């Protein structure tokens, strides 16, 4: 159980501290914005036809990376303060899930940055995505710190949700690799004579080759799939305790199942001739779209037991 004295009627909520947390998130967003622009700048410089311009690009990339590290530090502090303000784990509603989830995506990226060279170029996708999610979280999903409803008062909140967030993080990075892969392999991008496509081609030239991108996506997706399988099982164990059945086709359970099935399809596609490559990359992108759909549309508009957005 989340520590909660049984007789006490109020929970230690600190609304001032949650404001401070929000300022940290805002500041992190500002830094992510600059980092994102710097990465865009880097891509435009590195893809230049002039050698002198290309030379300066790596310095910009280094600067952007430092910005990203600082942004993630502020982001992390914001997440921790939110947890302290609510005196519990900071992922009990959509706002908190968004800030914690994006922080973990960045953390996974930063850790992988040291081990997987090919991942570095994906920073522009990553910082852009994180910025977008944080923007929506602070404007649409924002709710004041709240005490935990009884159904969420369980250690499974820590296990089930953390692993779900981690899985989402891995799928997220994999989807970035798959999108780059599909763009590289797109006939339109590769053959069009329009000027914009020429630039896109030069930018895509900076990305690892298609084989590497495919492998990168695969490696992140298998970790994501293992974690997602665990999320599903942990969710069923928790549902058995909180909702009196381990599986009841609640809308959120349905979508967790759909996502699992799509990624299972992705793994099979990778081993099926005619399906590996582009089609499996599409499946990975569709799988990630289903995750986003599950988190936004299903949470907000579908009727079900997982009504934890905290929004009215």
């Amino acid at each position, binding site marked *: 159980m989340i520590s*909660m004295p*049984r007789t006490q*009627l*109020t*929970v230690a*909520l600190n*609304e001032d501290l949650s404001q401070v947390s929000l300022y940290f998130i805002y500041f992190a967003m500002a830094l992510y914005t600059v980092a994102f622009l710097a990465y865009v700048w880097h891509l435009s410089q590195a893809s230049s036809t002039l050698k002198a311009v290309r030379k300066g690009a790596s310095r910009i990339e280094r600067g952007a990376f430092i910005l990203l590290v600082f942004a993630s530090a502020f982001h992390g502090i914001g997440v921790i303060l939110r947890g302290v303000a609510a005196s519990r784990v900071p992922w009990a509603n959509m706002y908190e899930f968004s800030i914690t989830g994006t922080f973990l995506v960045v953390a996974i990226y930063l850790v992988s940055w040291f081990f997987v060279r090919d991942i570095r170029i994906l920073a522009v996708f990553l910082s852009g995505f994180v910025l977008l999610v944080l923007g929506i979280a602070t404007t649409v999903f924002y*709710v*004041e*710190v*709240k*005490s*935990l*409803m*009884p*159904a969420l*008062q*369980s250690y*499974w909140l820590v296990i089930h949700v953390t692993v779900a967030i981690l899985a989402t993080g891995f799928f997220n990075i994999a989807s970035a690799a798959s999108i780059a892969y599909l763009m590289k392999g797109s006939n339109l991008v590769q053959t069009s004579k329009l000027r914009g496509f020429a630039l896109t081609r030069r930018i895509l030239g900076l990305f690892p080759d298609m084989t590497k991108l495919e492998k990168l996506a*695969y*490696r992140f997706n*298998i970790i994501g799939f*293992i974690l997602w*399988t*665990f999320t599903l*099982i942990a969710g*069923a*164990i*928790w549902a*058995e*305790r*909180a*909702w*009196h*059945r*381990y599986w*009841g*086709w*609640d*809308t959120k359970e*349905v*979508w967790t*199942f*759909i996502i699992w*099935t*799509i990624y*299972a*399809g992705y*793994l*099979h596609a*990778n*081993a*099926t*001739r005619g*399906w*590996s490559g582009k089609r499996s990359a599409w*499946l990975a992108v569709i799988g990630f779209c289903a995750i986003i759909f599950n988190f936004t549309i*299903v949470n907000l508009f*579908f*009727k079900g037991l997982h009504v934890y957005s905290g929004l009215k």
Partner: protein
Amino acid sequence: MDSSRPSDHVSNAPTEPNSSGVNSPELGLVGWLRWIWRLLTSMRTALILLLLLAAAAIPGSVYPQRSADPNGVTSYFQQNPELAKVLDGLQLFDVYSSVWFSSIYILLFVSLIGCVVPRAIVHAKAMASTPPATPKVMARMPAYQLVDAKKSVRAAVVERAANLLKRERYRVVVDGDSVSAERGYLRETGNLIFHLSLIGVLVAVGFGGAYSYSGQRLLVEGDTFVNNLAGYDSFSPGAFFNENNLTPFSMKLDKFEIAFDNNVNHKANAGTPIDFRATVSTKSSPTAPAQTTLIRVNEPLELPTAKVYLTGNGYAPVLAFSDKPCKNLNGGVRVIEGPFSYQGAVPYLPQDANYTSLGVIKLPDAKPNQYGVLSFFYPTAGKLPTGALTSVYPAAISPQSSLLTLNVYAGDLGLDSGIPSNVFSLATHGLKQLSGGKTGVKPIQLLVKGNAENLPNNMGCVAFTDLKRFASLDIDYNPGQGWVLLFALLSLAGLVLSLLVPRRRVWVKRVDDGFEVAALARGDDPALNRIVQEIAQELSSKKKKKDKDD
């Protein structure tokens, strides 16, 4: 597709049916069956069935499902009766037990069995046999290195490679000038465990569901539930459920408490429930001693033959109705006098987060005419801008803050027709409303318990004598769920092995000027090149060390 291959092996072109076979009469029944079986057990079919399954699951999240949300289905039928009939014909309110959903997953599992069983046999044979022979052209392997080496190194390289690979837990065969080694059999073992466990999950879900039951019972504080079919408000048994399997335990709801956040400084938070606690006394049999336990939302009561879960709660005002008018005492106080046409706790269903609650009382025994009552209870009454009453806090913030209102409806309640009716709703159609709403007669308002008030038209007296709470309890039994969990965890373990254990073959071969190292992986293996480099380095450098030692 070649089903004897591991799933992570890029397969060859699918075995297309003989193009002349489709309309060839010689194919015959056996040929057709074989063709269907091959088609069904191919990886491509499995993939398409998986994607179909994902797509087929979507409507179940769009339309209300009888299993998860029966009330949603009912209201869908009321709002769109024509469309609902069509959707129901397509089984869109029972997606997960529908013919089309079931056929997809049954086909998928048949395909899975057809794929996994031959693979298990192939894998068993591979486990028993030796690694495959060294390829003639090593340089064709995806990871390859040619190392120049002195004669002394070359002389020992085969033996040392064999020892090195054995230490690294490869299965090793020495064949003249070369060593052939293979490792990672667990990858395929894990893959088979994963798929076989999924079959286990399906079977356990099926059997567990068939022997399971799930029943609901609403208990007002002080009430006792006895575990037999009559004790349930609603009951859904599995296909093989036998009434005799219900053990005769009993359970009394001693008290039900809710903790709300009562800190008014938390603007967004005041009034949110923090804890629900049902204290129950259970007896495993009528003669057994009673045991007191606490049921909370994430802490069901675990009995040997069932689990009891807390799923809902609300207020249950204790009301008394009499056909005689209230008796006036000194000081304007009114009291009710028996005999009572109704007396007892009435569970009021909460309508919002602040427990604005709706109760229905039917009085078929009232004299001279029967009547029904629609009643609202506001734990802390307040007014909306429209003037309508609402509850502003889920509990009574002061003894005077609660309010109970009653609207009386006269007429035939339809209880004698023999058609079962919902105790929580009053079909007001055909009844005449006597108070509240548009009647012009103010609804009867009862503040706090202890009050009594006259009914309109001299119909009698009503009194609010006490306030209790009720708890909705779910009593569930599912003998399969432990097995489901076991197989689910096994499949997870199998999945981890099948995705993360590298399966690779390594060969070392002595050639004229040195030796060759090559490796081949099944599936994606990020370490393949590194492994070849390391082995090459190890085999040439160790000798150098030895030279120095000499």
